[in-house]
């Protein structure tokens, strides 16, 4: 058998042949699929003799998290540092947004609107709701702005820093089209730049405008996609942000070009460290909070992000997975209280050209489990009560994993986790996170220790 080329392997050949055949580049959902440095390459130095652990299930470990203490009259107060990232109504159905809101409210965290505006279902179900101000301004209005508990100005997104989005026509039903003031069924471009400000000087004035509009009541977040993190975080702070939301390369999207998803921006691991460095150099660490997103999957990821200096994390793709994304089945009520029966939809994945566990076909609007769809029949497959319960479980599990690790490091507050608690398993991770390589005191790039 002849040898497969490394440079022109079967995947590359398929890409070239598909591009030649169809004349379009791939647009897809979710985040980067290539192998990237992750928090898995860090481990905790938990307590033994040199550190004193707390009893795992008995001793109190605080998870309370406060965001937006810099200038707002009413900072956001959460029971856990795990928040829900912005995801649009349009990409997701109103039922999914409601399920997310219910789960977030039950565990005491915030959820976030997205491109397309705020739905009544989402506002009603979410105790703490962050309202995004996006370049498209789809559905953006002062009434919803005043209903928000915080405002997030989105300057960029980890899946596509520097790029806009594209919600394909098949997801634009009458309600989505009306909220976005556009015709039904057309491809909806989400711009990459805001219409009324360009650089950080303008952003300063934009933030002031939003504060004046809301009587300085609620915090203003600025979300950036991770690329030139050190500079961008400093500029966000200089512009007056209360909270910087940093979205790494693993962050998801409803639909954008594959070339963006896989080839733009930097992974979350080095991005966190650079963001913290920026806050420290400005002397605002602790005054301006840092929320990190992009590939946060487990309580361990949360703990490591906090140890590196983040105040909170936000999750998006993991939320969808908890709601059944990439599952072989969806469930429907079997009549009794909390009785469910599974319906296998493997064939529907195959019809999309994929399999459960590999799907990223959010952009098609044909989600077999009813999560990323606007189709009337498909969206019914997500039972709101079932979804909310699942997501609530997942958020609780992650919070418990987080506090378990914190206790084992001797911390009575998850926010007391620190960089000194971590070591890296690879030289690359040690260099990116600026923590020692495990078993050494060597931090790449540092001359003395």
């Amino acid at each position: 058998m002849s040898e497969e080329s490394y440079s022109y392997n079967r995947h590359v050949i398929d890409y070239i042949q598909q591009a030649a055949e169809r004349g379009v580049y791939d647009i897809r959902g979710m985040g980067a699929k290539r192998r990237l440095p992750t928090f898995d390459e860090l481990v905790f130095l938990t307590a033994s003799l040199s550190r004193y652990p707390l009893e795992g299930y008995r001793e109190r470990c605080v998870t309370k998290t406060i965001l937006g203490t810099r200038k707002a009259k009413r900072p956001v107060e959460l029971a856990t540092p795990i928040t829900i990232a912005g995801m649009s109504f349009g990409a997701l159905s109103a039922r999914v947004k409601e399920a997310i809101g219910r789960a977030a409210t039950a565990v005491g965290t915030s959820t976030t609107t997205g491109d397309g505006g705020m739905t009544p279902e989402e506002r009603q179900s979410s105790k703490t709701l962050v309202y995004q101000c996006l370049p498209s301004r789809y559905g953006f209005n002062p009434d919803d702005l005043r209903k928000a508990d915080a405002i997030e100005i989105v300057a960029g997104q980890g899946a596509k820093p520097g790029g806009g989005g594209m919600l394909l026509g098949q997801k634009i039903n009458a309600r989505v089209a009306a909220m976005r003031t556009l015709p039904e069924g057309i491809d909806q471009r989400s711009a990459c730049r805001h219409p009324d400000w360009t650089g950080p000087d303008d952003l300063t004035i934009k933030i002031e405008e939003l504060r004046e509009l809301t009587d300085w009541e609620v915090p203003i977040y600025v979300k950036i996609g991770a690329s030139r993190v050190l500079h961008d975080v400093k500029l966000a702070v200089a512009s007056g942000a209360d909270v910087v939301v940093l979205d790494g390369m693993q962050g998801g999207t409803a639909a954008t070009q594959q070339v963006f998803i896989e080839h733009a921006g930097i992974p979350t691991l080095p991005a966190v460290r650079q963001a913290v460095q920026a806050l420290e150099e400005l002397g605002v660490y602790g005054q301006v909070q840092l929320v990190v997103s992009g590939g946060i999957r487990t309580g361990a990821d949360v703990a490591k992000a906090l140890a590196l200096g983040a105040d909170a994390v936000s999750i998006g793709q993991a939320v969808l997975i908890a709601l059944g994304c990439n599952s072989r089945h969806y469930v429907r009520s079997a009549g009794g209280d909390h009785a469910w029966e599974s319906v296998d939809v493997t064939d529907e994945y195959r019809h999309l050209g994929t399999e459960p566990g590999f799907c990223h076909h959010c952009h098609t609007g044909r989600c077999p489990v009813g999560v990323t769809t606007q189709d009337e029949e498909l969206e019914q497959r997500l039972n709101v009560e079932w979804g909310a319960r699942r997501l609530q479980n997942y958020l609780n599990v992650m919070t418990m994993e987080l506090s378990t690790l914190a206790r084992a490091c001797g911390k009575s507050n998850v926010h007391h986790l620190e960089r000194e608690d971590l070591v890296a398993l690879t030289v690359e991770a040690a260099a990116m996170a600026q923590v020692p390589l495990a078993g050494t005191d060597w931090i790449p790039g540092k001359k003395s220790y």
Partner: protein
Amino acid sequence: MASVAPTVEFDLDQISLRELNQFLHHDLGSGDHVEITHPNGRHSIAVGIDADVDVQIRGHAGYYVAAMNKRAHVTVHGNVGWGVAENIMSGVVRVKGNASASAASSGRGGLVIIEGDAASRCGISMKGCDIVVGGNVGHVSGFMGQLGRLVVCGDAGAGLGDSLYEAVIYVRGQIASLGADAREEPLSKSDISALVELLDQAGFAHEPSEFKRIASSRTLYHWNAAHLGSYG
């Protein structure tokens, strides 16, 4: 005899912007007249009003004056910075002088009148508001306009109406160039009626038939690599 609504006066040399805006948000009575003096180019003056009131700003204003306005009639007796009437919902905002970039950007309703010139990106991302500019507009005006009408009594800069959706632009003077997917179309009777109405409201005595209609050719509504030349 009908009662006369009171005039409330604010001197921005004497009170803070925050005090002014909080009054406008919470303490206005229907039909009130508000006089604001010494704006001196301050940003975010009279943002977020939601009341049937008349507001007169005596001087130049900075960015975002009368942003997200609902119902109020706001007049600026001077020039304005970026984003005048940004995301306007309803009501009328009139600028007696010139406007800088992104006038009425993402406006969803209401009427914005610029008696002088408007700089680049006038009406960018507009979503249902009407805009009448007495003079010229700068480059890429009407960019990605989704709904509403932009009337330009003077000339338009390069890239007019780039990536338009369903907004319509009327231009009386010269157009430096059209943007991607924008095209000139013949004026219909409904266009003439619209122009009569808008010019009358703005107070400009131009002949509607002198205007050109610019709208989307809708060829870019569905993404296709064959349109590569148009995207550039």
